[in-house]
């Protein structure tokens, strides 16, 4: 039963994370197609920096605490990448250069989405597996 709860919680974490990153991606895409100005766009992206990075960190911690080693290992690259961005102080969208960095920022987020989607896929598998196993 506890296992199922673990999976449900991590599933919720992941879905929130996915929504945040997708939202950031749409902001960047809006910018590219001139539907938004750089000020609003970068403000809304930067507002979500803390929730995104925080959630990701918490999720890793949660995996460690609950002893899901495989999932920990799977989410470590993402964590390290976030830490690296933070250390290099590239975690925030730079309003002055946002048009020049837009391509890269989008790419970055597409990779993040892919990674999160993979995690969601595995999580949902285990979620269903443990749910069925309990019956």
């Amino acid at each position, binding site marked *: 039963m506890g296992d199922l709860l673990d999976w449900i919680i991590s599933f919720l974490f992941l879905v929130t994370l996915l929504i945040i990153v997708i939202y950031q991606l749409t902001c960047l895409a809006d910018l590219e197609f001139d539907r938004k*100005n*750089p*000020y609003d766009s970068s403000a809304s992206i930067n507002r979500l920096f803390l929730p995104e990075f925080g959630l990701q960190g918490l999720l890793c911690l949660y995996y460690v605490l609950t002893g899901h080693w495989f999932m920990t290992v799977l989410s470590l690259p993402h964590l390290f990448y976030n830490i690296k961005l933070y250390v290099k*102080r590239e975690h925030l969208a730079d*309003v*002055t250069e946002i048009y*020049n960095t837009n391509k890269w920022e989008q790419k970055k987020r597409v990779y993040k989405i892919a990674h999160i989607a993979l995690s969601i896929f595995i999580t949902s598998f285990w979620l269903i597996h443990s749910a069925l196993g309990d019956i």
Partner: protein
Amino acid sequence: MNTENKGYPNFPARPAPASSPFASAPPPGIPPQSGGPPTGSDAVGFRPFPPSASQPIRPFAPSGPPPAPGAMRPSQPSPFVSQIPGSRPPPPSTAYGPPPPPPGAAPFQRFPSPPFPTTQNPPPQGPPQTLAGHFSPPMSLRPQQPMGPPPQSMISGLPGANTSPSPADFNMAARPGFQQSMPPVTQSYPGVGGSQPSFPGYPSKQVSQPPPMPFQSSQGPPVSSYPPHTGGFAQRPNIAAQQNLHPNYAPPTSNVQGLVEDFNSLSLASIPGSMEPGLDHRSFPRPLDGDVEPNSFAEMYPMNCHSRYLRLTTSAIPNSQSLASRWHLPLGAVVCPLAETPEGEEVPLIDFGSTGIIRCRRCRTYVNPYVTFTDSGRKWRCNICSMLNDVPGEYFSHLDANGRRMDMDQRPELTKGSVEIIAPTEYMVRPPMPPIYFFLIDVSISATKSGMLEVVAQTIKSCLDNLPGYPRTQIGFITYDSTLHFYNMKSSLSQPQMMVVTDLDDIFLPLPDDLLVNLSESRTVVEAFLDSLPMMFQDNVNVESAFGPALRAAFMVMNQLGGKLLIFQNSLPSLGAGRLKLRGDDPRVYGTDKEYALRVAEDPFYKQMAADCTKFQIGINVYAFSDKYTDIASLGTLAKYTGGQVYYYPGFQSSVHGDKLRHELARDLTRETAWEAVMRIRCGKGIRFSSYHGNFMLRSTDLIALPAVDCDKAYAMQLSLEETLLTTQTVYFQVALLYTASCGERRIRVHTSIAPVVADLGEMYRQADTGSIVSLYARLAIEKSLSAKLDDARNAIQQKIVKALKEYRNLHAVQHRLGSRLIYPETLKFLPLYGMAIIKSIPLRGGPADASLDERCAAGFTMMALPVKKLLKLLYPNLFRVDEWLLKPSADHDDLNNVLKRLPLAAESLDSRGLYIYDDGFRLVLWFGRMLSPDIAKNLLGDDFAAELSRVTFQEQGNGMSKKLMSLVKKLRENDPSYHPMCFLVRQGEQPREGFLLLRNLIEDQMGGSSGYVDWILQIQRQIQQN
């Protein structure tokens, strides 16, 4: 170079000088037909050149939608004309001119005269000199080692040959008719060009043209040997047009067509018999004539805007992505929307009145000379998107028989590439702002000690009368050290009231208004303030600098209206938000991956402030004065993203730098400024501007926000092709700058330009413009240095040049044995040199010891904004010798360019008996040779001529020679008022000043770890040959 009009006078069909298409246009009263061309549907009255069958590649089929005027010009002559590498204007024509050849042409006379055996019956159409050029040695050999039939060469080598009547005169006799009808051809003949003594100082001009090996065998009768000239044109599509125009010419024999190449080359093999293993670097191309604008193109499309406003990197746009990817040079443009115009060429101001501005409904293009009117004048077709628009009733005009509007001559927007349109209220989001100048002045101890405060106060006061926009101009001041001082300048006061705010964390304005006041109303208070400012703080011993809070306060004062913020900063910001650390010049960081971080803003505060300022139309100019590290990288960010600029006076002392600051600040305050501007470039379907480089911030993907812009700023941008294949034959570019003029009018400045689309890479190289390519490269390299190591930025430039030249080599390697020659198109002959100059420029040169970090960053910010001409001058500065000119009692010191010859930037140009001036537009260095006659030194420097020159002040001495030199210096400064070059005096051997001021800037020499010109060329050549 001598491209102006040279290409055209021989075409009888041309109605008028190309550069002034409407000079011959009828006065308004006369129906346009009378002056108009009888043929064709030409929109502006050019008689189209008879279209010839051999123009298939030219994009201008007469059936094309807008029959581009001038498009039918018989090819682009100037590439040929400019084939003469580095030639100075006079030589080509004088060398052949009927009068006795001038002494300058003497070396040339070695080859021209050797007549063939067949000269007994010279056909008038076979210009003998082309033959002569044929046999002449210059090709791949040095003139001293003549090749070809030895006897003739020897004859011609004799001095007597110049005067001997037999062959030489004969040549001339045969020439005159030809000479008049075909001057450009004569000059353009590559072989002859190659043999010109282009650099007077370098008689042993080496190879410039590849050997025309193919002809060696085919040279028999003069007619068939004449082809080198036609061959030169053979790759041109419209050789037939040439033939039509010159019926007395024999038709080119086909076997030689296409065999003469149109590239230049440098032979890099060692010279046989020479002691040096290397090569003759004196023959390398050098831009000693300064920047050469691509004139041919301006003449071909006379309705294009002038190249001072818009310069494309190549005036031939590739028609496909694959072609564009083979063009390794940048594809783009450099735009200087408000470039200063010479007297008489002002941009016409147009008021559409109640009609409203005529723009395309779909793509919003402004009406321009390239739109076409159809449907008897009721509709017009947009040249950019081909949309058919209605002509408003008030704008309607009948068309004449040629489809040309009757009122064409009264409508500058239909005849001129550059116009200024008065914008109605739809173009305003708020009432036009008044010109606003706000000053943020550091008054800490160093500011008063160095005398900066006094100079600034005096200069501002002296400029009050000349600030643009009287009587609406507004002005305000904040000073700061560890606290902020606000000044109430209400007009009813007699003295300004000072208010001190000490709370730096939570800035508030002590007074809601009256911090920014109308200058004309509060004039006396402002003057009283400026008079007392230096006194107020003269005993200040505060060393802190609350720069960030002061900036915030200024932002709060200004954000209602915007304007220009001038910051005078004397030390590293040390208090409050935006305080900076002394990250300094740690040499250990260089060469590591963290190196670039030194060159970008340390605190995100600066970028954020800059972005906010741009949003509220505040443009920032930063003046930095400290001799210690001030973190220009961070401070300059403010200027970079608000469209401003950085002025850096390291170690400011009012006695030394006062003049410079005075001039530059005055220029900054009084030059015509465009306020709250946005700029956009539109271009035809299928292409898009993809990246922008310069000091500004992008507001949307293609909208450049410029809170304050003036004539000294240029912006570069790169193009990319969106469609794999362009189907149009031409591409149009339209720069539109919407701004508020100082007088309070909202205006749009529109520059329109056209460029053909080509399918041939060679044509792209032929139409390349080194100036704008170099300008783009410099910007790219500086940008790269903000995210990578200096080394990487330098290598990137080198790689780009190598790739471009390699592609060019591949283009020609199939047909020709190139051996170990470096080949390059005529248009790009200076590219390698400028590339090296970029690498050795202050922002990119060497390592930590070669330039201080602040100097680097300041120069980087400056170079990002410089217009093409100024940048080229900075990259390859002028060096000339003046002692001989000073001694000459000549009266012609008006014509400086003829008197003072630019010298190559190498130590060997310096003669220790001479006096030289080095001028890069930012400083003047007077170099006194060690053996310079003491009379000159005494005349120029007065009694302390023997002292160490760093302590000598340069001033007029009251004798003729000194006056002459001072007038020269004055003239050099007036040539370009945007910066005030300071004069430095240095004597040969005065180290380290000499090295620092001059020797290090002689870029052709080897210095430190960087290579000299010869090594550089060899390096490039080696890399090109590696596959």
